[in-house]
């Protein structure tokens, strides 16, 4: 970095003080004002590094969010909520691991995975709002809360469409490894197919997501193997976690009528079409780990309704209470 400190000083310039055309490219200088502080040079002398943005922006700014032909906006929005809520709730559970993982590297890994999923959730919820503004909860006049935040922080539990696997409380480290393996195996298979969908936003989110979730699946698959082939205690904990979470696996590949309908329209993916691939990947992990596929029945829904219908375990309400409390207390707050 050969830039001299003080040669660029954004913060000190009043808007409009630079006349159009008066500045040579590559020689931005504003009156030689030298701030001379202890922080000079910390970031290569580039003062723009201190201009950290804090305001929200439209995550889909400039992206064409037209609903594809023959697709109902409300249906598309509900579908985006399903995929977005899976990512959001899973991200929230993973975030609870911050500072609690067995070592620093795994703590950072879990936080990174949570961040990837939060990013996916943000785009998917924004896409839901663009497809049908009617899904966005009403907020007081003048509230600065963007639509995707309103969806995350101002919906009740019955309006969340995530699978129940994402919401059940955390357990030990083996539990988060198993949960993430089951979740990311199904999500990766889904995103791989969604890339070819007719909705450009969903296809683009999926294309990016595939690259990210491939890392998540590898991380959890390696830890599954490590814990299974580790000590008696690590194996005992792994098997207990697998036994506890397996009843929630089937929901990941159980189609909701809406998912079927959007799959038929060429926009979404029928989760039933993922079963073969998901089973093959899980069988591979189980085989190298020397673990039998659990023989546990799927967790029943309420009158056949499950997470995709807004029917959740009580764990979701508690999770939402914590996740939403600050936003709900300050619906007009700026952050």
């Amino acid at each position, binding site marked *: 970095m050969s830039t001299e400190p003080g040669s660029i000083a954004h913060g000190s310039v009043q808007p409009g003080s630079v006349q159009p055309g008066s500045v040579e490219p590559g*020689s931005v200088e504003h009156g030689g004002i030298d701030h001379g502080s202890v922080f000079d040079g910390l970031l290569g002398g580039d003062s723009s*590094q201190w201009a950290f943005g804090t305001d929200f922006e439209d995550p889909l700014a400039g992206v064409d969010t037209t609903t594809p032909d023959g697709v109902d906006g409300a249906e598309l929005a509900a579908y985006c909520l399903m995929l977005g809520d899976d990512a959001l709730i899973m991200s929230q559970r993973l975030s609870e691991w911050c500072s609690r993982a067995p070592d620093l590297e795994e703590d950072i890994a879990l936080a990174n995975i949570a*961040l990837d999923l939060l990013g996916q959730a943000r785009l998917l919820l924004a896409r839901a709002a663009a497809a049908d503004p009617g899904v966005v909860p009403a907020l007081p006049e003048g509230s600065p809360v963007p639509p995707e935040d309103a969806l995350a922080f101002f919906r009740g539990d019955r309006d969340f469409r995530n699978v129940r696997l994402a919401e059940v409380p955390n357990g030990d480290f083996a539990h988060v490894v198993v949960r993430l393996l089951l979740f990311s195996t199904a999500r990766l298979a889904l995103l791989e197919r969604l890339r070819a969908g007719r909705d450009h936003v969903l296809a683009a989110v999926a294309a990016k*997501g595939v690259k990210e979730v491939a890392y998540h699946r*590898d991380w959890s698959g390696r830890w599954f193997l490590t814990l299974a082939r580790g000590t008696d205690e690590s194996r005992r904990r792994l098997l207990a976690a697998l036994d506890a979470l397996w009843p929630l696996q089937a929901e990941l590949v159980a189609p909701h009528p809406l998912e079927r309908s959007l799959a038929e329209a060429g926009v979404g993916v029928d989760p039933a079409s993922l079963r073969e691939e998901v089973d093959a990947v899980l069988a591979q992990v189980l085989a190298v780990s020397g673990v039998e596929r659990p023989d546990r029945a799927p967790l029943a829904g309420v009158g056949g309704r499950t997470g995709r219908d807004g029917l959740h375990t009580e764990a979701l309400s508690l999770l939402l209470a914590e996740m939403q409390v600050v936003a709900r207390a300050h619906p007009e707050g700026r952050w």
Partner: protein
Amino acid sequence: MTPAHPAPGRPHDQPRTDAGHPATGRPHDRAPADAGRRAAEVAGHVRDPEMPMLTLADLGVLRGVDVVRGDSGEEVVVVSITPTYTGCPAMATMRDDLVHRLNDAGFDRVEVRVVLDPPWSSDWISEQGRAALRAAGLSPPGPAARRAGPVPLTLGPPRTAPPCPRCGSPDTRLTSEFGATACKALYRCAGCLEPFEHVKEI
């Protein structure tokens, strides 16, 4: 006058010549080519907030700079950027930096657009960017995997370990595929015993 970033070559021209990209090559009611060149040059000097040794152009995040005429004939700079990772928390900072720099250079109206497709690839980091990473002690990414069909599960040690960016030793070990930012993995060198960060292939 001190050149803000005396970068050799014209790396900032890259996004504009990226044939086939949706953000470029469209028939615009173009302002004088000079304004477009100037805007591209200013935008091409803006650095990445998390890896300030790289410009956004070097990183491949800057996908296009166009100057168009607005409704009342004024110059509007339209800048297209793409996130490295979906959750990249630096997008707002990148946008603000681009707007500030272009405002300072006399472009009063700046629009920053998000391009999601095609998704960012570490292959887009320029040669100059790779050299800057190495000079800063970071290991640049190898070629990203190109595959058709399902993503294979990798349960063994992943990929080929990169050489140490400090001592050049090929004897390095992966510590974690997740690092201080979404785009970096952690390695350690068995030669010089130093840890280092590696920009992940995606």
